[in-house]
């Protein structure tokens, strides 16, 4: 395989930045809608993880498979999800892709390679591996599948079994660990005992990559390499990126357990701010340009939210309440 992918250009960087920005603005809106009591279900945000997440989504292409996790709003948008469908799902519109049956972080469109995560962490690892196996059996080459997971998720049996099975079949799977220092309230010291989560790569016989999760360029370069290597026959790639979740676990969580020294350390930096600084320092854009971009996105998000709020909720009378696709298999229960 060719060792090096094309370098990350200014335009790549700016494109990734704009998606990060869209994700940030959209999530700010979700948070405020949540506080206003307008969201159906929970709100779990990816603030501080956009650089890593966008770098995954942006390096996948049509025909690839992506199973985002909790904090992958940026990666979702980069892979093709829309502000409209995001808001429809959170606001409980009938027109959302999940039709009210499931929602929010659990949304997806599997037919488009955009998988809908189940809550049980780790479960998407073997699912993406299986998708890649099926593609290989069909004779397709050059396909990549990616999924994200947290430090907490690495403790699941599903992660272990899935990554190991993918390694045995040398599947083009990229597993991206956002090591955001906490699983809900649980600090890494109660989650694992290895010196570095990247030490796990050798134990599975997969390639390992480290990215600085606060630095967009590092994330872009690392993911570009990892996706490239997977696409070119290098087998599973494990990417580990230290960073800090900059918000509570969910919007209900005040994050009181945050160790303040982490906030001040290198991992505590805000990747969006750092990216802005980088853009300005490179002279690629002015502060005014960036402010204009933000306003544009805010407008789009606000307008879309207003529109979606007028859409009807799902109608229970219209739901066919069918867990199986075959109508003949639907059971009738007497008094139900």
């Amino acid at each position: 395989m060719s060792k090096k992918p094309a370098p990350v250009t200014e335009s790549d960087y700016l494109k990734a930045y704009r998606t990060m920005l869209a994700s940030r603005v959209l999530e700010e809106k979700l948070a405020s809608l949540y506080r206003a009591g307008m969201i159906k279900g929970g709100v779990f945000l990816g603030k501080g993880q956009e650089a890593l997440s966008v770098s995954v989504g942006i390096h996948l292409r049509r025909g690839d498979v992506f199973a985002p996790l909790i904090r992958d709003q940026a990666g979702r948008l980069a892979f093709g999800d829309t502000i409209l469908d995001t808001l429809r799902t959170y606001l409980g519109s009938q027109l959302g892709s999940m039709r009210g049956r499931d929602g929010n972080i659990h949304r997806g469109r599997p037919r488009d390679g955009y998988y809908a995560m189940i809550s049980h962490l780790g479960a998407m690892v073997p699912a993406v591996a299986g998708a890649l196996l099926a593609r290989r059996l069909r004779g397709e080459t050059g396909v990549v599948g990616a999924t994200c997971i947290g430090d907490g998720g690495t403790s699941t049996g599903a992660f272990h079994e899935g990554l190991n099975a993918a390694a045995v079949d040398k599947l083009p799977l990229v597993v991206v660990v956002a090591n955001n220092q906490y699983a809900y309230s649980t600090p890494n010291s109660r989650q694992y005992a290895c010196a570095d989560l990247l030490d796990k790569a050798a134990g599975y016989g997969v390639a390992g990559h480290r990215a600085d999760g606060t630095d967009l360029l590092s994330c872009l370069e690392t993911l570009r390499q990892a996706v490239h290597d997977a696409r070119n026959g290098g087998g599973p790639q494990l990417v580990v990126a230290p960073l800090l979740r900059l918000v509570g676990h969910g919007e209900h969580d005040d994050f009181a357990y945050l160790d303040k020294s982490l906030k001040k350390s290198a991992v505590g930096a805000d990747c969006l701010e750092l990216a802005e600084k980088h853009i300005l320092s490179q002279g690629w854009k002015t502060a005014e340009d960036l402010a204009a971009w933000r306003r544009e996105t805010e407008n789009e998000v606000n307008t879309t939210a207003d529109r979606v709020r007028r859409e009807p909720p799902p109608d229970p009378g219209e739901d066919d309440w069918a867990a199986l696709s075959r109508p003949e298999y639907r059971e009738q229960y007497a008094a139900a």
Partner: protein
Amino acid sequence: MITYLEAIRLAQQKALATDPRVFLYGQDIGNFGGAFKATKNLANEFPGRVLDSPLSEDAIVGMAIGAAIEGARPIVEMQFADFSTCGLNQIVNHAATLFYRTGVPCPIVVRLPSGGTSGAGPFHSQSMEAIYAHWPGLVVVTPATVEDVYTMLLEAVAIDDPVIFCEHKFLYYHLKAEKLPETSLPIGKARIARAGRDATIVTHGAMLHESLAAAAELAADGYELEVVDLRSVKPLDTDTVLASVARTGRLLVVSEEWPWGGVTSEVISRVSTEGFGLLDAAPMRINAKDTPVPYHPDLWSVHRPTASTIAAAARRLLHI
């Protein structure tokens, strides 16, 4: 006023205070006090005995089993009942078989925050009692009141057998009691929650309150429904159910979990096989619909039984 949730916390506090064998293990239950705060402050009060686990349900249960063999009394918390599927193998194949196989009992308590709440969706709403009741070797309890959740949790810790403790999240905050009881019915005994003569509703968990509301609605029309709160679904107190049906002649069983092989199915099967002659009419059952639990509140409120669907079924049962 003490909430259902606070009663769970107080029971664990008392268990820790009075029994040195007790310890707590689970995700985020330490300093954070748990996703629902059912262990709030306990890590402080009982240093070293309330431990945060990694995100590993199988290991959580497996470790509890080993600890129990050594004489400890672990209480483990699943963050949601739904995630217990990841620890199910240890529960049903290890904890549940240990006594029969080796003669050594396995006194673990697995707390399952169970059942539906608005907006929680397919993976934070499940009721798992029927699953765990199917395998031999487990005690499966479903406390429906503040008093029961307190006394039954203490009793669960005290007994030698593994207990699946299905506490209902819908009841966490709004169910309140003045004070906590010292004594109570033992696990395995059902309770007549409301006496009546015209028909029997057998239920458990959050559906007790929906059923009581339905009974109140029918009382306004002059019908007296007897409501039996099962309290534990395994063992299941067939005698109390049969005695009630003997009085009323009619049976409606209400559960929030899925219908196939659920509590409704087991109760109706027992009454039909053991009390066929007591029934004046076909027994009826109401369950959640046979689909995953939908996340949207408008769908969810139709997916599960409610006072009004229960009342409607009761009217059909009574031919009103």
